[in-house]
């Protein structure tokens, strides 16, 4: 198991301070876990096919996909500068994935509501302006999400990517100069 780089602490503290402590925990957990060998996407597709074909067949044992390795390889530790690079990429990708899914979900909710209205002859302009609001109750407060807010957040992702990239470069340079 890798030892956490002290140079990561400013990023972890910043995540906690802005209210994304869950993301700070994920960064630490990811570095502790290291890089593990994952099922290849082609194998995964073959396993999905195997599940579907098993449904149609009358055998009663697990259907093996030959490419699946019989044992799990040990994780490869993430150490030194690689921890800085890994953490910067992880934070950006994690937020980027979540925001893309949020935007897609809002679009899909809007599409579900709009389709019958358009079929019933309601003007597309009216349908488009009648936006769905997503409400997600949390443990202590209710979160309200609208499409425009999500678009603003997505627009800030590029700023985050550049800032993380600069932080990564400066952190590594500082280490080399010491």
């Amino acid at each position, binding site marked *: 198991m890798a030892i956490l780089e002290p140079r990561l602490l400013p*990023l972890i503290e*910043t*995540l906690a301070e*802005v*209210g*994304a402590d869950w993301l700070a925990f994920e960064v630490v*957990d*990811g570095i502790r*876990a290291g890089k*593990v*060998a*994952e*099922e*290849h*996407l082609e*194998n*995964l597709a073959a396993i*999905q096919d195997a599940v*579907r074909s*098993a449904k149609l067949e009358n055998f*009663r044992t*697990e*259907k093996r996909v030959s490419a*699946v390795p019989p044992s*799990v*390889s040990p994780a490869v530790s993430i150490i030194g500068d690689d921890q800085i690079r890994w953490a910067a990429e*992880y934070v950006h990708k*994690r937020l980027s*994935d*979540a*925001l*893309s*899914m*949020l935007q*897609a*979900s809002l679009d*899909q*909710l809007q*599409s*579900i509501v709009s389709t*019958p*209205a358009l079929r019933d002859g309601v003007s597309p302009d*009216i349908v488009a302006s009648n*936006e*769905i*609001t997503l409400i*997600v*109750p*949390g*443990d202590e407060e209710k*979160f309200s*999400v609208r499409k425009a*807010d999500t678009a*603003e*957040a997505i627009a*800030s992702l590029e700023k*985050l990517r550049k*800032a993380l990239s*600069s*932080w990564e470069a400066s952190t590594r340079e500082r280490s080399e100069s010491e």
Partner: protein
Amino acid sequence: VINDVRAALDSILGNTAILRSANGAGRIFELFVMTGIAARLQTQGFDVWLQRSDGTQISAGDSDRRFIQRGGAPTGVLPASLGPDNASVIGLSRLPTGSVWEIWNGIQFQGRSGATHEIDIAVVPRQVGEELRQIGGSPFGRPRVAIECKDVGQPGTVDEMRAFVARLYDLSVLQGHRSYVPYPPPPQAIFPGTFADSFYASQMTYWDENRNSFNVVARRTGFVAGATTMTSYFNIEPHGNITVGSTQAIALVDAVSQWIVNCVP
């Protein structure tokens, strides 16, 4: 330099405070999968609608156009009499048969043991939802479609599969269980009316029941190599790397919607 990172994070989280919640990203992942399936079924000729917790439909012209996702501590279905401020569901009707279903998010189902098990995304007959909205409570039995959503950063292990299999087994009601489960089933049971109906009929074995339902572990990240054992035997499809626009996300939505198209009455 770290202050630039802080400023960018503040801008993102200031616009989407849901991402300050520890469960926020996970809820978004579930919503993405749930709405993706519903939107796909809509393109395949199903009548699909958003429905408030009081049972009314959300229309484009309504002043209240809130879709409320389930959050906080997991519960069963709350009574409609509590009003429209609880969790919404997605309704779908097969045309022209008129068979009506609901897609639920994060509902606790009751198993034969009496324990409750949260199913992240479940597809159930609408009759079950209507009964539960009258009285409130957890459905008894196994949904026809059950999807376990995992938004965690690390790849999935075989333990995830074990936990899901155990949950589904406690929810299964087989013919052999009929002597010690309520029969005729209570109205909120997943087998409305009668066990003899061909689609809802209780099966002889778990093997048969696994094949009379559609079960998925869906992950934003992947699976550890070798972690996808116990899939074909228990009929659980592993779907990994589910992100917006990925071929894996499309394959997941296609697989679920196609099973519904092919198998539900």
